[in-house]
């Protein structure tokens, strides 16, 4: 059963990666990143049950990761709004300050 969960997580991660790399709306990019985080969480919990030594550690990790992800989402949206106010767009194509 473990490999099914892992495969599931891999699919989710790759879809998230694809979304993060192709979507042009910054909000959707953030969402895709949340997807990838969820895939990781799924892995952790799966190992927590089906690992060689099952323990709660994986779940604890997931808990912290969810907390950090929540903080990240909040700050990310805040940054996005500030950026939108400054540039008038949420299109990531227009965010090319790093080139300058």
């Amino acid at each position: 059963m473990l490999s099914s969960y892992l495969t599931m997580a891999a699919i989710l991660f790759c879809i998230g990666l694809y979304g993060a790399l192709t979507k042009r709306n910054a909000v959707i990019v953030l969402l895709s990143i949340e997807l990838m985080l969820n895939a990781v969480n799924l892995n952790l919990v799966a190992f927590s049950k089906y690992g060689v030594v099952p323990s709660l550690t994986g779940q604890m990790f997931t808990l912290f990761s969810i907390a950090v992800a929540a903080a990240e989402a909040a700050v990310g949206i805040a940054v996005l709004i500030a950026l939108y106010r400054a540039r008038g767009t949420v299109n990531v194509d227009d965010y090319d300050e790093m080139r300058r």
Partner: protein
Amino acid sequence: MDTTFSQAAWLIPLFPLAAFLLLLAFGRSSRMIGVLLGSVSSLAGFVLSLLVLIEHMTKGQHDYQYAVKWIDTGSIVFKAGFEVTNLTALMLVVVTAVSFLVNVYSAGYMKGDERISVFYSYVALFTFSMLGLVLADNMLTLYVFWELVGVCSFLLVGFWFSKPEARAAAKKAFIVTRIGDAGLLLGILLLYWYMPDHALDFVRIGNAFEGGTGVIAASVTTWIAILIFIGAVGKSGQFPLHVWLPDAMEGPTPISALIHAATMVAAGVYLVARTFDIFQASQTAMDIVAYIGGFTAIFAATIGVAQNDIKRILAYSTVSQLGYMMMALGLNSMTGGIFHLFTHAFFKALLFLGAGSVIHAVHTQNIQEMGGLGSKMKITAWTFGIGALALSGIPPFSGFWSKDMILNIAYHEKPALFVIGVVAAFFTAFYMARLFFLVFMGKPKGERHAHESPPSMTGPLIVLAVLAVVAGFVQTPWNDTLGNWLTDGAEQENGGGGLVMVISAAIGLLGLYMGWLVFVKGMISRDFVSSRAPWLVRLLERKYYIDELYEAAIVRPLRALGGLLNGIDDYVVDGLVRAAGGAAFLIGRGGTRMQNGQVQTYGLITAFALVILIAAVALRRFW
């Protein structure tokens, strides 16, 4: 046993060196400084040389040698020093005398040239190098100065480098003499290899070879002699490396007189005389020297008949006379060679300076465009006439005595060479008559107003004319002064030779008479030969097509090879270089495209890199 002046002989080359350095530093400040420094330094050198010579003549046969360590690598020690022998002393006087006169002469001849100071600095450098060459006590230092005079020759031939002919001539002179230099260098290396203790100084070389004692194997001796002779062939314009000398006449005329008539080209003869012991140890080498010399003598003399450029005629005459010197050396007569060198230096310098005076007046070098200058340029005409008579071998001028001596030796040693020498002497007299009569007699041609040259130019002419008359009396059939003095009495000239003397004088007079008949009286039509055998004239005018032959046989293939190598360099080597540069450029362009500031592009690249990294790590398990 007083050698005061000989000990100070090393100072002689330092005068022109100092002049050169000073001119290098201050030459541009004043136009006269060059004239002054050049003349004074060469005069000082001349005075000291004269003192050395007198000392050598009065105080007996005492050679003085002094050397310091130059390179000491433990097992191998090279020394550098100077040696004053009778031969050196004589050469010193010749070089400094001609150099001084040419310096004075150039003050007038080069007056209008804006680079006169540069000219004088080159002349000073040349004088220094030539004196160093003469004084050198071993082959290695001699070789250094040998190359230095080559460089000076290159610089001075190409002095008017804005003229393409001068550039080409300078290159040609340098490259052709280099062939000879390579031979000389090989000879020196061979000598170094086989000499006991690797000694290269002339004293020990002389000891090693003297009397064919067999310190060095006969075949090796022959090879060394031939290789050294190749160096002499290059420098002295002997066949087949004579081609550069006539072209070198593109340089200023005083230079032609100093370098390409009196001194540098004589360096080859001097070299053979200096290493005469080596040659004497190998009869084969001696024969080669003699026959090359004899062939060059007649070969160049015949070309001289058909040339129209006044300096080129003299140049071929120089080649021819150098051939005489070589022939004399090859016939085991150092006295003959050096004696002719001695007289030739004066009368050929005289002829060149006279030619320079003529060119100065009429601004052309084509003798067909000259004529009737005798009445307008009396001093030039008279002195030039004396030079021509000396060259033609008319008694009692100096050329007669030296040439007579060579012919006398040839008569006794190798009659074939005697015949060649006599025929060459006839041609010499004939082309000198042609030259003299066309330039100074007849009707003036062209509208140019010719005038006599300034005293600074005519003065040296007169001095040289006097020398050309009297220089021959140091050695006459009745008077062995030079021979005794030069060779320590080893070469007893078989005097008498009245027959040879008569033939020699007669053939010279005959040549002049023929010239007179053709070019003054017109009894024999000028196109007597050209109408009957135009191919012959053509052949002579084109100098036996030697240049064309070299062009086709050597220059073209080398050029093609060079072109090929250049192509390889352009397309293969440079192609690789360009490909490397282009690759870097493309990578940079790609990098620029990637670095577009888009986070997603960066992420994409990172993802790919991750995939590749994982794949690489994973695949490693299968290796």
